[in-house]
């Protein structure tokens, strides 16, 4: 079993037009920079992207958006991206806005083999449109469905050749669940270490969920809003 690939080019073999992708990260924190750049370079098109945010105009998913590679976005928050707003308001881009916790749970459920579940978020709002409503313990809930993807693309601080992953601080965010929900999961990591070097007690994502792993290069790790004391 060899999961280690050389780079993003090798990692995305088989990734084709029209596929559904999950892209990890919250804002620009914990996004798979190398793979996103490669997707922009090969100009794969008509993608459906499941990602909490849509990057910024010239970085992250924003680049794919700018180059019209996305057909549909499933996200919870897309502010700070003018091109997104323009494509959304003009109808060029199909957008499904999902409450953040529901999005996280839909991904978790998809990866865990749970087809659907009920949550209270969005009841009585336009998010509830067309959804089954059911009362539990005197409170109204919406039926939501699990999500999976052709490729889940995540980024971790450390990984090993078995595919075990450890995230850093708040760069974990959606990466951990997305890793479980891809038919093929690609993990790019800042440091790829030999098997045995990561403490099994500290693993966030067990290797079973990861099919391809590589050590990324030239991480920019941009900060959206640098705030200091």
């Amino acid at each position, binding site marked *: 079993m060899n999961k280690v690939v050389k780079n993003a080019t090798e990692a995305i073999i088989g990734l084709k037009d029209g596929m559904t992708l999950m892209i990890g990260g*919250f*804002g*620009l*924190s*914990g996004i798979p920079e190398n793979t996103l750049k490669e997707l922009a370079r090969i100009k794969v098109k008509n993608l459906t992207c499941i990602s*909490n945010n849509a990057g910024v105009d010239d970085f992250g998913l924003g680049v794919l958006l700018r180059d019209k590679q996305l057909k549909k976005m499933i*996200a*919870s*928050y*897309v*502010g*700070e991206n003018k091109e997104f*707003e323009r494509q*959304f*308001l003009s109808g060029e881009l199909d*957008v499904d*806005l999902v*409450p*953040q*916790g*529901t*999005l*996280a*749970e839909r*991904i*978790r459920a998809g990866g865990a083999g749970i087809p659907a579940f009920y*949550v*209270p*978020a*969005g*009841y*009585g*709002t*336009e*998010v509830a449109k067309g959804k089954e409503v059911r009362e539990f313990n005197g409170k109204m809930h919406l039926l939501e469905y699990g999500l999976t993807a052709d490729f889940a693309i995540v980024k971790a*601080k450390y990984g090993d050749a078995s595919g075990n992953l450890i*995230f*850093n*601080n*708040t*760069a*974990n*965010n*959606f*990466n*951990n*669940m997305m890793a479980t929900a891809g038919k093929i999961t690609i993990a790019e990591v800042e440091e790829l270490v030999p098997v045995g070097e990561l403490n099994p007690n500290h693993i*966030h994502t067990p290797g079973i969920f990861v099919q391809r792993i590589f050590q990324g290069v030239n991480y920019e*790790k*941009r*900060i*959206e*809003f*640098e*705030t*200091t*004391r």
Partner: protein
Amino acid sequence: MALDKTGIAKRAAQELQDGYYVNLGIGIPTLLANYIPEGMDVILQSENGLLGIGEFPEKGKADPDLINAGKQTVTAIQGASFFDSALSFAMIRGGHINLTVLGAFEVSENGDIASWKIPGKLVKGMGGAMDLVASAKNIIVTTTHTDRNGKSKLKKACTLPLTGVSCVKKIITDLAVVSVTDKGFKLLERAPGVSVEEIKHATEGNLIVEGNIPEMNL
């Protein structure tokens, strides 16, 4: 005189209690962190995966892997923890968060809130706000009483797309503290120097005024 943002945050901070786990929204709510009463243990949760938000980092020490839900660089306090988004919303949906404070475009007299979309004009998405208002035990809105055009944000019914229904318990504005009751908004406190008449004038929804309304103690 109407309060400024800092004044609203100061008054809202009086709602905190020792041992509370609190989620603060973007804008005025974030300022509450500066006015946590001395000696009180309040743990701030950030829905992107941090329990125990600390101060902003010192200059030159900002970490791209350590941000809050507003995507600002922050620090973590001693005893903090990091986790993924599913676990983060287990805290929220599971009712483990004692208090949520967030901003709003509109609140209705039955406690509906609109805060995430202005059709045709502004689409940012709801982020975690719908999950928070559907599940937190106590939800307080901090906002200006009226919008830039002087129109009341405390409405009979919301006109903008809703974030949640019948969920807001209290509203703290630049003019007043108001609770949401079965019969409408109930005036609890006035900003220093602001009259009941001024508050009535700025409130579109039904405003219940009973007895003498004290000034806020800031």
